[in-house]
């Protein structure tokens, strides 16, 4: 269903695969079919194959359930990080407590998604992690006609300076670090506002509307587009 947010460039070397450590067969299959169009997917019920693949550099990304049959996902990730392995890990878990989330991230998870989740949400996070978007140390972000100076905190579209409030700047920065990728409302809530609770989508939408209003002068093409029912995407070609 997420063909629309398929990354423009192939994100990974073809021999690398997404290893999904999930012991619930239904969920594992749903994940496999979701990602199959874009990645090579290997299911690893106990996490063993995934650990071996990560050590051998064959894993593009690990999707790790915290509670596996006969194994603790948290412990596996800790082990992996202990060996100095930096393979991105997306933790998924039924445990939604803030402490659980912190434990997951502290163990070395790069992102933490609480079950139940929408597939689009899951997909967007996998794409972001597969591209290792968060750990690029840059001072200037460029996406199409948009440029953002992170230190001077200046944003320009085709040379025209755009005045943004601090939160709007943060919001746009999040998009510019993920050009062309699906950004869900939940990602924005979690990562831009640090909110761990559910709010209705209209509140985030209102912020996006305000941001668009500043980015798009009359007659200009819309840079942040809606992906119906899924979220938003910054149009990198814009």
């Amino acid at each position: 269903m997420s063909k629309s947010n398929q990354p423009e460039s192939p994100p990974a070397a073809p021999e690398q695969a997404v290893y999904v450590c999930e012991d619930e067969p239904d969920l594992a299959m749903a994940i496999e079919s979701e990602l199959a169009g874009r990645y090579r997917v290997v299911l690893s019920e106990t996490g063993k194959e995934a650990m071996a693949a990560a050590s051998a550099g064959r894993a593009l990304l690990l999707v790790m359930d915290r509670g596996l049959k006969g194994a603790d996902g948290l412990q596996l990730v800790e082990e992996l990080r202990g060996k100095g392995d930096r393979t991105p890990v997306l933790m998924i878990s039924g445990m939604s407590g803030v402490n659980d989330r912190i434990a997951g991230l502290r163990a070395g998870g790069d992102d933490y998604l609480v079950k139940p989740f929408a597939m689009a949400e899951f997909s967007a996070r996998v794409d972001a992690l597969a591209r290792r978007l968060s750990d690029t140390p840059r001072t200037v972000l460029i996406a199409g006609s948009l440029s953002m100076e992170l230190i001077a905190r200046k944003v320009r579209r085709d040379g025209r300076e755009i005045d943004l409030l601090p939160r709007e700047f943060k919001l746009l920065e999040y998009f510019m670090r993920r050009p062309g990728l699906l950004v869900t409302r939940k990602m924005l809530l979690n990562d831009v506002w640090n909110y761990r609770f559910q709010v209705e989508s209209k509140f985030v939408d209102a912020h996006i509307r305000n941001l668009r209003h500043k980015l798009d002068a009359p007659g200009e093409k819309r840079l942040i587009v809606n992906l119906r029912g899924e979220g938003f995407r910054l149009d990198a070609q814009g």
Partner: protein
Amino acid sequence: MRRVELFRSTPLRLAFAFALAMILLTGGVFSFVYVATTRAWIAQLQHVFVDEAEKAAASDEDRLRGALSLRLTRDFRRLNYVALYDSSGALVFGNFDHRPDIPVDGQARVVDDFRAAAGAEPEPTLLVARARPNGGVIVLGRSLDEVATLRRILARALSFAILPLAAAALAIGLFFSRRTASRIREIHRAIEAIMQGDLRARLPPSGIEELDGVIGSVNLMLDEIERLLGQLAAVGGNIAHDLRAPIVNVRATLEQALAATPKGDSLRAPVQSALRQIDRALTTIAALLRISSIENEHRHSAFCRIDLAALCAELQEFFLPLAQARGIAMTLAAETSVWRQGDADLMREAIANLVDNALKFTPRGGAVRIEAYERDGRGVIEVSDNGRGVPVAEVQDIFRRFARARDGADQPGVGIGLSIAGTIARLHRMELSVADNGPGARFILREQAPKGR
């Protein structure tokens, strides 16, 4: 209020009775000492006097006179009055003129109002009259003014003792009465806390043995109630948990099916509708799980210093764009920091739920106001609107899990949000209440009075 309570209290009345009893008892003891001492003393004197009169009566006239005058001058303390009458009854020798009216039988008697001379003050006197062999009569007398002196001394001692004694008895009574009253107040406070839903609270020991037995039983009963309620809550949580997994899987299946269905297919609409319904169910399940996890985790360990005013400002910023888009004025009054121990994520969630709720009930052109302040040392967060308000009858109802204002049925999830806010409030020792804002409603998160007040 409290003074009246104190005087009404049984312990204080007991203290008064105790003080009175102490006074009476002390008076009694003093009286007993007085009576017993004087009686023993007079009896002894009588014995000596009878003896003395016998000897005197037997002596011859001249020796007796010499001896008596010597006694009167040298031994004044033991013999005050002497009178010697001859056989015709005329006074021969002596220092009083009026013969007392007592039988001449050699027995010592106490005359309460003896006057030595006509103008003298009457005083209690021990007198003995005895016939002499020559037909005359000898009368010996001894003033008992020591008895009066003793009585005066005892009365003065008593009057000096009685005031401090009464004061001490009252003070002791007051101390115990206050102590008992404060213990009872503590117990009362604990019961109030339990009534307000803090089932982990227990009654404090009173220090009164009989009462402690009752308190112990009540606490055991509370343990049992808490255990049972915990089981009930766990049942709800477990059901929600068990329902979630299959529903999530159904959702994933439907999503896949939808993705595989070409655009324009007649199956797309019903599948999309089913997905929406499933999402509603999942929202409810997530809220149920959320509430039970907040209730059960007791996450005081994650508490740190948070500024309630800053949280309000942050949430106002978050909700402002939508409020503006809807033509609702959203104002903030949180100039002064209100630092408290708490969980920032949970507090944000609680405030967000209140603001979300206020926005739902406020029409275009209305206003929502977020306030954070400190009053009487208690942190307060208020979210008020001028929307349609909350009918009085529904005020209590609204805090019940998942209840919602009846005419808000078109607004999904109002009750869920308030339930979550209420649960978070309790965890932070805060109370969530609602008041009329005329028009509109005012939701108030207020810290409970500090313990031990």
